[in-house]
């Protein structure tokens, strides 16, 4: 397990502190994930997603349930060639290979440190012939036309510059009839009441500032399907699963101190502070959608 237990260097700690406390800086995606490195709060594996909590009681179970949700929606099976963009540490790719046995999984990720760590994990598990991970961009894929059956993006498409450029590339590399499945973070539709609106803006801003989200990706779930269709996708389905993501995660973190203990000490106080506020307030501006679409043919 390449999970990092080494203490952070002073330089890393200062950068981490700056990331957590300074709202006026913005980092690019690569620098944020390089900084977070392998310090994820999950107990087994290095899961980076927020989890799907409908039937889960632990963070790891919830993360696996999110991966399973995408695979089920895609109808993943032994005949499928899967392309997974923004794979993090490839936990979902390892999970899918074990539980759905797709023919192959190719992963693209622009964060070099994640690619290197994930490749080592996959090789250690003896899955290097099934899962092929490399440095590449979701908006300029090094993948031939019509060469994959399923494209997945688990909680990362909001980073892509832009999400629609990713939709266009996904359509290109999918074979006719191939499926795109995305778990994605969006702003909520704007509320009528003034207080609600302010809380929404703060909530969205807190996330967009910490994890760089291009302004072009800031639209609500009502626009998601039409934007997929505009790129040429059909059978678009977009549903909000936010009720099974944010509030139960928040309740879990508040109830289980061992999760925050696994974070770097510098990251604990802001999380503990946030946990004293209700989930409804903190996540008021955030939507979480499961979206799927099919390439015609």
């Amino acid at each position, binding site marked *: 397990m390449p999970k990092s237990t080494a203490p952070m260097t002073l330089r890393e700690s200062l950068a981490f502190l700056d990331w957590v406390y300074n709202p006026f800086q913005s980092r690019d995606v690569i620098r944020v994930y390089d900084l977070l490195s392998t310090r994820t709060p999950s107990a087994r594996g290095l899961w980076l997603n927020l989890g799907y909590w409908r039937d889960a009681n632990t963070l790891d179970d919830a993360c696996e349930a999110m991966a399973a949700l995408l695979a089920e929606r895609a109808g993943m099976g032994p005949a499928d060639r899967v392309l997974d963009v923004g794979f993090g540490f490839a936990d979902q790719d390892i999970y899918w290979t074990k539980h759905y046995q797709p023919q192959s999984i*190719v992963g693209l990720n622009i964060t*070099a440190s994640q690619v*290197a760590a994930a*490749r080592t994990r996959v090789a250690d598990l003896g899955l290097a012939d099934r899962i092929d991970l*490399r440095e590449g*961009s979701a908006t300029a894929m090094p*993948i*031939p036309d019509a060469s994959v059956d399923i494209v997945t993006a688990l909680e990362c498409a909001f980073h892509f510059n832009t999400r629609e450029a990713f939709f266009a590339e996904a359509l*290109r590399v999918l074979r006719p009839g191939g499926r795109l499945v995305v778990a994605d973070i969006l702003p909520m539709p704007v509320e009528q009441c003034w207080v609600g609106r302010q809380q929404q803006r703060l909530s969205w801003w807190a996330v967009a500032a910490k994890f760089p989200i291009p302004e072009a990706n800031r639209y609500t779930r009502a626009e998601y399907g039409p934007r997929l269709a505009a790129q040429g996708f059909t059978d678009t389905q977009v549903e909000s699963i936010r009720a099974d993501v944010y509030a139960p995660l928040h309740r879990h973190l508040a109830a289980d101190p061992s999760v925050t203990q696994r974070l770097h000490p510098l990251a604990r106080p802001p999380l503990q502070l946030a946990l004293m506020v209700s989930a409804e307030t903190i996540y008021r501006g955030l939507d979480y959608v499961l979206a799927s679409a099919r390439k015609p043919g």
Partner: protein
Amino acid sequence: MLDKNLLEILVCPVTKGPLIYDKARAELISVAGRLAYPIRDDIPVMLEEEARTLSAEEAEGYRKGGSAQLG
């Protein structure tokens, strides 16, 4: 060590055209894009901003001797 099957499923992210594997230099060459993508620790880095631009002579060299360079 980069196997041939892997090379078959890679294209240049800019031109979407084929790549030539230059084993000696540890690079993947896109002749049409005049770009050389590095292979670092066996990981092909398929990002335009990480690629080296080929000179006209280099590109011509690969164009002529292209298939012979395949590793």
